[in-house]
């Protein structure tokens, strides 16, 4: 277990790791329904109740507890982010490895398709896909996965190309090692570091994209909660009930900060030139 210790030893890794860990805990509690109140229960008498000891973050227009809905929303947003990044990383790795390994025509086709996808702004492309397929949790996951696949493809293809030309791959060929062995042990194993860093950063972007989609009403559908949806609902009540906007907004901001700090730390930890400076 060298990794957790290394993250803990890194200053921004410590903060990032703590934030991400906290969010994960909140997400799990939110998904299991272990919230202070029922996030869907409407306490009609306490509509737009300011934060106090009962409702830590106040209540919304329907009298639902904001703190509980925030936990539910974090659970929802993280689920979408994790699944979409997992799919994107998987597809991107396979495509990037294939492009690097087969080269020539394959490389050309794969990378041109990725260039086309990259030419669209992320949120626009995601919107387009959701608009065609219809809103919902699973369509958001697929849309965000498609949007972030090109980034993983590029992150994998470059290093894979240079690894392919390294002498240990030549050496493996002289023993007659199979392509699948070379791909998994010599290429993929050496790609673990850049992929881990990229996954951490992509999680932050995916959270933002999910929030954006939900804000526009194309992601998570009510009455379920998500961070973007909560922000969207608070729009018209900004002046009367600012807590409706402040808490989801802060939640999004801090989570992005956490993932970015963790990503920076992982990048340093995997960089052999930095290894000694940290340890």
């Amino acid at each position: 277990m060298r990794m957790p210790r290394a993250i803990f030893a890194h200053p921004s890794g410590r903060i990032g790791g703590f934030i991400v860990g906290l969010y994960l805990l909140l997400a799990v509690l939110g998904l299991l329904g272990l919230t202070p109140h029922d996030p869907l229960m409407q306490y009609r008498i306490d509509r737009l109740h300011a934060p106090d000891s009962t409702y830590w973050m106040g209540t919304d227009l329907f009298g639902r507890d904001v703190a509980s809905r925030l936990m539910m929303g974090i659970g929802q947003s993280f689920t979408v982010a994790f699944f979409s990044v997992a799919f994107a990383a998987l597809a991107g790795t396979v495509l990037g490895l294939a492009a690097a390994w087969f080269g020539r025509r394959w490389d050309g086709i794969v990378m041109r398709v990725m260039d086309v996808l990259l030419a669209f702004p992320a949120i626009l492309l995601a919107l387009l896909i959701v608009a065609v397929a219809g809103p919902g949790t699973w369509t958001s996951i697929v849309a965000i996965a498609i949007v972030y696949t090109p980034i993983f493809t590029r992150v994998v293809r470059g290093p894979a190309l240079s690894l392919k030309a390294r002498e240990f791959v030549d050496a493996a060929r002289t023993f007659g090692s199979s392509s699948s062995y070379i791909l998994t042990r010599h290429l993929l194993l050496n790609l673990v570091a850049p992929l881990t860093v990229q996954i951490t950063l992509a999680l932050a972007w995916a959270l933002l994209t999910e929030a954006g989609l939900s804000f526009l009403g194309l992601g998570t559908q009510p009455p379920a909660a998500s961070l973007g949806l909560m922000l969207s609902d608070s729009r018209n009540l900004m002046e009367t009930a600012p807590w409706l906007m402040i808490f989801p907004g802060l939640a999004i901001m801090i989570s992005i900060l956490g993932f970015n700090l963790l990503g920076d730390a992982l990048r340093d930890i995997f960089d052999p030139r930095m290894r000694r400076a940290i340890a």
Partner: protein
Amino acid sequence: MIPLLSVSGLSVGFGRAPQANEVVRGVSFELADGETLAIVGESGSGKSVTALSINRLVDFGGGRITAGSIKLKRADGSVLDLTAASEPQLTRIRGAEIGMIFQEPMTSLNPVLTIGTQIEESFRLHRGLTGRQATAAAKDALDRVRIPDAARRLKYTPNQLSGGMLQRVMIATALACNPRLLIADEPTTALDVTVQAQIMALLAELKRETGMSMIFITHDIGLVAGIADKIMVMQNGQAVEQGELNQILDQPRHAYTQHLLQDVPHFASGRATRLDGSREKAPAADPALKVNDLVVRFPVKSGFFGRATGAVHAVDGVDFDLMQGETLAIVGESGSGKSTTARAVLGLVRSTRGSFSVSARKAAAGQSALPIQMVFQNPYASLNPRLAIESILAEPVIATGGRVDAAARAKMATLLKRVGLPENSLERYPHEFSGGQRQRLCIARALMLNPSVVVLDEAVSALDVSVQARVLELLVDLQREYGLAYLFISHDMAVVERIAHRIAVIYAGQIVEIGDAKSVLSAPKHAYTKKLIAAVPTIDRRREHFELDTRQVPSLVRPLGFEPVPSRWEQFGADHRVRVEA
């Protein structure tokens, strides 16, 4: 008389606690006007850091001078302590009073600027020349380093010039302002041996012409014999011995200097060849490897549709055979096709034509035998950094469809022990090993499959000189023990002399001379072999001057369908053939 440079008690450290991480400790030396000091040492000895401290370039690499003084006598006669000089002062001194040339001429020049612009910059900065004056000065500078056709070459970008030419450009730049001290940090290490000889000759001539002092840093004690007045030997950050050239070379006192002079391969013109396994004594048998008319061509494509308009004839009709237990060394300079030959034999490069026959050894029960294995040049790049040694050694077994069972594990342990690595190596990772140890690992890996032929592509070139000697010994022992045939690719004559039974000299894709090692090295017949051998620096040839030769290697790009004229051979002695040049 004040010396030009006087360094006393110099210590340099790195990192946040420079005092604790000192890589140079208490080095002192003096350098008079017009004198050349050679600093000799292996990697990590602190020789480059010492030199970089003199012009304080070490500051930019994160180093800090922790103790000592560096006193430079300036042009006006005043003495300045460089350890206390301010950065603006240092900027004026660098280039104007202390010039420097580096190891890699290819990376020391900006690739997008013409060499003219880059030389002129030095004149602009230090002498305030502009426009046509600066251009004229740059042309003179190129003339001075014997670059033919200097006026036209000023408009070239670095990629249009060879490594030797670029190093001359670097020297021209460094000498632009007539510095009184030139620091040369391994200026010829990245160059071919004949080019190295030319650069050394040029430096010696320039030194005579200008009367400048020089600090010459090298790992090759044989190289300094022709140029240095004084030698300082460094080991682990300390100067272990210093003195006059002849005194150090003839009566070395320190054990490490003696080791550098005696145990390290030095070229001895065929007097140090191996005595075992001569061809005449061995009974005629089937060769372990026979290569017939090997041809490797790479198409040259041009035009919009990428049609092949010619071909690079990298290897053009090479044949040789290799007996069991024998070493054939293929020597030649970069671009001669020696590595391509090796790669083609292993199938890493597709050969255009030609045939091999390999006599596979009888495979023992349960072991499949791949008859040819290879050890690569760079021990840092040829082991996957993310795999433990056990997985690395298991790979050949898995690749050939074997199982990693008790027998395979026993073989790993035996081989590790045989190549001289500790028993606990199996669980460790490549980065925990030194360069020499990694190359031992690569050798062990190559032997996992019981090959009959091992191709060693510059296998000891990346190693420190004293490590080189030990790996060569290991290779010779293994050859005797397992009856291996080696195809040893190298540019280093001193190394080749220690390990080869036979030598093939390759030039422009063709073998020009092949034969018994002793015969080829002591009595070379082909003009190219003679030139190659004459260029090898040795301790014996002190102060010998080389002719400056600016000829370039011929282009290997030929039109489509070009076939070389079949070679005619002239025989000298029982086993020594030379190609007859038309």
